[in-house]
Structures are given as C-alpha cells and as structure tokens.
C-alpha cells in the first residue's frame, strides 16, 4: 500500500512555464529554430551569390579533364585525367604519408620515451631535450626548415652524391634508387604476402591454444616471420624469378629510370615523424610510469626473462594507458599531413585547392575534403577503439 502510494506519487501541478520538461522543449525548439534560421539565411545568400557569379553547382566537374600536373603520384596520372582521378591521387598521397608517419613515429617515440626513463643520465637528458625541442616549435616551421635544407644543402643532379656502385643517387631532386621492372608476378607476390600474414596470424593463434592446452611453447614469432617473407618469395621463384631492374641514370638535367623519393615527401615525412614522436614519447613514458614496480618484480620472481616480462606482463598493462591518447596522436598525424600544401607535396588538400581555383566550386570541394578526412578519422578511431576494447582490463 505504502509502496504503491510512493511509486505513483501524484505529480505536483505546476504552471507550464515552470515545468522543467516544457521549458526544456521550448528552449530546444528555440535554439534549433535559430540554428535553422541561420542556416536558411546562409544557404539563401550562397545560392544568390552563386547565381550572380555564374558558378555552376553539383559534382559534374569531377568527370572533366583536370589539366594540371601532379609531381608525385602513386597511380598513373596525367593532366588529361579527370578531376576525380586527381583528387584520388591526393587521397592516396595523404594516406601514404599518414600510414608511414604513424608507423615510424610510433617506433621512434617509443624508443625516445623508454630512453627518457633510462638510468643513464646523459641518455635521459638527451631524450628530454629532444622532446622539448620538437614539441615547442610549430610543425610548419620544422617542415619549412627540413624542406629548405634538403633543397638548398644537397647538390644538384649533376653533382649528386652516389652510393652503392652508382646505383643510389642523392641530390636536391630526391633520392633515386633502382627498382625491379614491373612484372605480372608482382601482383601475385602481393597476394602471397597477404596470404602469408593471414597464415602467420593463424599459426600464432594455434600456437597459443596449444600452449594453453598442453603447456608446450612454439616459436610462433620467428615462424611467423618465415611464413610472411617466405610465401611471396616462393611465388617469386614459381614465377621464374624475374631479376630485371630499372637503374637510375643521369639524362640531361635529371635522372631517369629507377624510382625516386621526392624531397617534398621526405621533408613532410621527417617533419611529421620527428614532431609527433615527441608527443608519442611522453605518452609512452607516462604509460610505463603508471605501472607499479611490483609488476616487474613479480614477473622476475616467476622466472620470466626480461624480454618475456616486458612482452607478457608490462607492455599489455602499459598499453591500456597508452592506447587512448595514442589514438588522438594518430588522428593528429593524419590531419597534420595536410600541411603538405605549404611545401608543395601533392596531398588531398593541395589537389583540392587547385581544383577550387580552377573550377570556382568551393562548396562541393570543401565538402569533399571534410568527407575524406572524416572518413579517415572515423576509421582510425573505430580501429583504435576496437583495439582498446581488446586490450582493456576484463573485469568480473
């Protein structure tokens, strides 16, 4: 009886302008109405302006001929290609520098972060000053410095520094080195590499299961390396082991043949990696410092080797602290790669900027930039969240 009365306590009658629910809805409707009115006003102005300036709208321009050169492309591209192709080249260039940047800055940052914790005073001081120097100066300034140094400090193509019996050339046009001539077998080697990676993961899972069941260890890591490298190598042998190489050689004012890592790309990658690794180092350091000393002592008491205790006990726990802030650093690298435009590396923003200047269709192009970055950002977030859940502490 009492419970029933409590549960269905009659609502106190209040005037509607004092009822928090009514107030809440009125407030929300007013705010959304204001935002909608602002949007309506801006869109109206925009349509007006577009009409007056005779700017076309819609995405039809994507199919038209782009007509501009791109210096550094991963897929075949010429000025006769379409705008869509030019933007795709930009996206691939952004992804290339972002992926390499993420991998390299993780490695370098981890080394520096561990170095800061070293008992060696000199090493830890050097790592500390490395971190302070790189993160207290704008990334853009580093990019300009590295780019100008590469372009002005290295000799021209005719006086290029050569190494490895005139097969590798370093000049202000970039680093030229020989590559195998394209062969259909390369595609199948890629498939082989993928199969090798899948095989290695399966092998690792099997080894773990067996060790949990029988206690017998299996060197799944070294076996995995053999599988990953061996599968494409086997495919290469099966395909007749083609060894024709394309060698770089000086022709006229520049090199021909081989392949090149261009100075813009190098400056961008080096700048991004050095800058971001300073932040990664701090994250790794705080992750390791967050661990209790008893963890490494307990691991040693169980008879684990230093490597084992790092891999099986310390790292998995430190990763829980490290992964969330690391995710935002990875997102930062991807977004910061857009600074490429300042030193002339043809990334997504650079391609789209030229497209805006040529077509005048700013809105569609900026929507494209935003859509592209948002989808890359969201995929990285989704992957890192999945990884974070996997390594998270599983409690009762």
């Amino acid at each position: 009886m009492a419970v029933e009365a409590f549960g269905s306590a009659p609502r106190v009658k209040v005037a509607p302008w004092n009822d928090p629910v009514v107030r809440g809805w009125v407030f929300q409707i007013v705010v959304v109405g204001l935002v909608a009115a602002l949007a309506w006003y801006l869109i109206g102005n925009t349509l007006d302006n577009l009409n007056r300036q005779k700017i076309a709208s819609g995405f039809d321009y994507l199919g038209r001929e782009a007509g501009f050169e791109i210096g550094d492309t991963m897929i075949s591209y010429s000025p006769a290609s379409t705008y869509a192709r030019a933007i795709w080249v930009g996206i691939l260039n952004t992804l290339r520098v972002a992926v390499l940047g993420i991998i390299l800055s993780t490695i370098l940052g981890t080394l520096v972060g561990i170095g800061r914790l070293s008992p060696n005073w000199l090493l830890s001081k050097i790592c500390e000053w490395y971190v302070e120097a790189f993160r207290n100066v704008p990334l853009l300034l580093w990019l300009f410095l590295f780019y100008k140094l590469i372009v002005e400090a290295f000799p021209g193509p005719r006086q290029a520094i050569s190494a490895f019996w005139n097969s590798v050339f370093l000049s202000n046009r970039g680093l030229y080195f020989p590559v195998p001539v394209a062969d259909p077998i390369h595609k199948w080697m890629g498939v082989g590499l993928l199969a090798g990676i899948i095989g290695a993961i399966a092998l690792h899972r099997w080894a773990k299961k067996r060790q949990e069941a029988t206690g017998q260890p299996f060197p799944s890591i070294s076996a995995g390396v053999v599988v990953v490298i061996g599968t494409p190598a086997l495919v290469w042998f099966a395909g007749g082991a083609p060894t024709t190489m394309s060698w770089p050689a000086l022709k006229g004012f520049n090199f021909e043949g081989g392949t090149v890592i261009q100075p813009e790309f190098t400056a961008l990658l080096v700048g991004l990696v050095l800058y971001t690794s300073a932040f990664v180092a701090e994250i790794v350091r705080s992750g390791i410092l967050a661990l209790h000393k008893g963890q490494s002592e307990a691991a040693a008491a169980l008879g684990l080797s230093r490597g084992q205790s790092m891999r099986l006990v310390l790292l998995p726990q430190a990763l829980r602290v490290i992964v969330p802030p690391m995710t935002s650093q990875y997102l930062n690298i991807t977004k910061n790669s857009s600074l490429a435009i300042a030193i002339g590396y043809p990334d997504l923003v650079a391609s789209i900027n030229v497209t805006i200047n040529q077509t005048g269709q700013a809105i569609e192009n900026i929507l494209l930039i935003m859509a592209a970055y948002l989808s890359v950002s969201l995929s990285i977030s989704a992957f890192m969240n999945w990884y974070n859940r996997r390594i998270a502490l599983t409690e009762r």
Partner: protein
Amino acid sequence: MTDSLPTGERRQLAPPLIERGALGWMRRNLFSSWANGIITVVLVVFVGSILSSFLEWAVFTANVTAATGSECHGQGACWALIVEKYRLIFFGTFPYEQQWRPLVASITLLAMLVMTSDRRMWNWRLLVIWSVGSFITFLMMFGQIHIPLSLFLAIALLVGGVGMSLRKAIADAGEMNAYRTLAAIGLIGLALRIAGILPAWSLDIAPLSYVETGLWGGIPVTLILASYGLVFAFPYGILLALGRRSDLPLIRALCVGFIELIRGVPLISLLIMASVMLPLFLPSGVTFDKFLRAQVAIILFAGAYIAEVIRGGLQSLPKGQYEAAEALGFNYVQKTALIILPQALRVVIPPLINTFLGFFKDTSLVLIIGIFDFLNTANQALVDPNWAGFPAEIYMFAALIYFIFCYSVSRYSKHLEVELNRGTRH
C-alpha cells in the same frame, strides 16, 4: 667491553673516493653497468661531434656584420641576415616609421598574458586587464577605434541578464533592480537600433593614422590570433561542453555533431573554408576582413577542442555536487556557474594551457591563406634576392622565439598543476 669503544673523538670514515662527489655521481649515473658505460661513451662522441660542428657554424665562423648576403657565403651562420631583417620578421609590413605601435601592442599583449597567469588576478581584475589591454592593443594596431553605440547596449544587456540569473534570490532588491534596469536599457536600445529609430552613433577615438589589417604582420599577429582565439573560444567551449552534457536531446545532438565535425577535419580545411566559402555565405556587398575570417576559423576550431577538455572536468565531478546544488534550490545557471564550473575548470586548467599551446603553434597555419603571422614574416625575410640562401638561420631564429614562448608556458602549466593540487595531494 663497553670501555673499549672510543668515546672521545670518533673518526668518521668518508665513503671511498669512487662513491662520492663528481666521481660517485658519474659512476651512479653514467657508468652503472658495462652497457651504460658504452652508451655514455657513444653518446659523448656523437653529441660532442654534432655540438662542436654546430658551435663552429653558429658561433665561431658566424658573420654578424655583413652588409649583403654575398659577403656571408662560404662561412658559418649568417646572423647578419637577422640583424638586417629583424624589423621585418617582428613586425612585417607595418609602415616602417610607425613600427613602435606593433611593439607597444606586443608588449601590452605579453603583459596581459603574464598578468593573466597570476592566480591573484583570477577574478573581476581579469575583466579590467583584458578590457584595458585590448583597447591599447587595437588602438595601437589600427590607430583609430570606432566603438558603436550598439556595443555599449549589448554589454548592458549582457551584464544585466547575467546578473539577473546569477544573483537571483542572493542579491537584495536594490541590486536586482539595477540589473533589471541595465537589461531593459540594453534590450530596448538594441530593439530601437535594429528598428532604425536610434541613429548609428559611435564613439570615435582617432589619435593615429589608420593601418588596415592587411599590413599587420609578425609577432603581434601571432599573439592576437592566439590570445583572442582563446578568449572567445573559452566561453564558447564551455557552452559546447555543457551542451554535450545536457539532458536535452536536440541540444546534445547539435553540440556532439559540431564538436566531432570540427575535430575530424584539419585546421587548414577550416581556414580555406573561411577564406573561400565565408564570402559566399554573406549577402553580396558585405565584405568581411580576411584577418577576422581567420580569427573566426581559429575560434571555431579551438572551441571544439576546449569543449572536449572541459567535458573531462565536468565528468570528473561527483554527482553529489549537482544534486546538492539542486537541493539548495539553485536554478540551472546558478548551479552551473556557482557550483559546477568553478570546480570543473580548476581540474582542467593545466590541460587547457596545453591546448592553448597547441593552437598557439597552429596559428602559424594562417600563412596558407596569406596572413602575415610570425612564421610568414620570417619566410618573407628569405625572399630578398640579396640575401638568398640562408634558410637555416632564419628558421632557427624563429624556432628559438617560438621555443622560448612555448617552453615557458609549458613550465608554467606544470607549476600550476602542482600548485592547484596542493589541497588534494595525498
């Protein structure tokens, strides 16, 4: 037995030579094991050779007095370039004889920042510091200031409105009436102004020649973009964070959408948007200063990041604080402004300063849309054909300036973290 112990002069043996003093320190910190010893030796050789060739270049063979770049070639660092171009690097293309004005503006801005860093000022004094400081800064930069009547009216409305909701049931009748009067004057005045009944009157202060924003450059531009980015993004970020934590679904959706959209795209795309898309949004004939457009883009960008930092502070408060404020009969504004925010903001001050540092560095991106911030004016110093070929000198000088500013701010943030946690430290 006991009398065999010496009682008079007890000789204290010093630790062995190798354990104390500089030698002991080196043994403990540099040569504690074989591996450490090898690392130390390799590092000393490596760092020593880099440092000695750097000093050779930057100090011993450097040229400070050359009159043109050609006298510098083939030697060490050409610091003469900095000596020649420092006015351009610091103040850009601001009219040359008038460059004391950006100097005064920069000093004012720095003084404002230094005063803001003092915790004793974190009250009404901040308002005074920033009002007076902003007045001096913009008077120096523009040379002339026109304050329209509507600005005074808007301030009256704001002060009256905030006072009415914050001091409700706390202030006495006289104070409340003062707020009501202020708000009424502001509201009615603005309404009359919009209706066109009140004339477009403005307070004109014009002691100096007018300099348009297109000629601004260097240190003051970077400081203005970063400081006013923070000043405006801060309240905006608070609103976004509160919106994201709100119980009202539509408000929450709006705020989450905005924050995630801004955080998902690079600042450059926002700047490009501000420079090419914003003009399309406005009715034809209305133009919008390029500098102001960049400032708006930076505020929108910084607001989203600040909102996320503040949300962290809001989440760290126990629910009891909200409930206690409600139990005291506080309305939403009072609860938020008097109970929740003072505690939440205190927690996030150090990360907020780091966020500020982040977009202080990011203001350098405005050079993409052709604004002459400090990095861009440093770039301009390289353009002169008489002084071609010394990028390292210019960039190292600019890097040093950035470093001094950012390093001191990050030290300050660390110091503040200790200071603010003094009450809660275990």
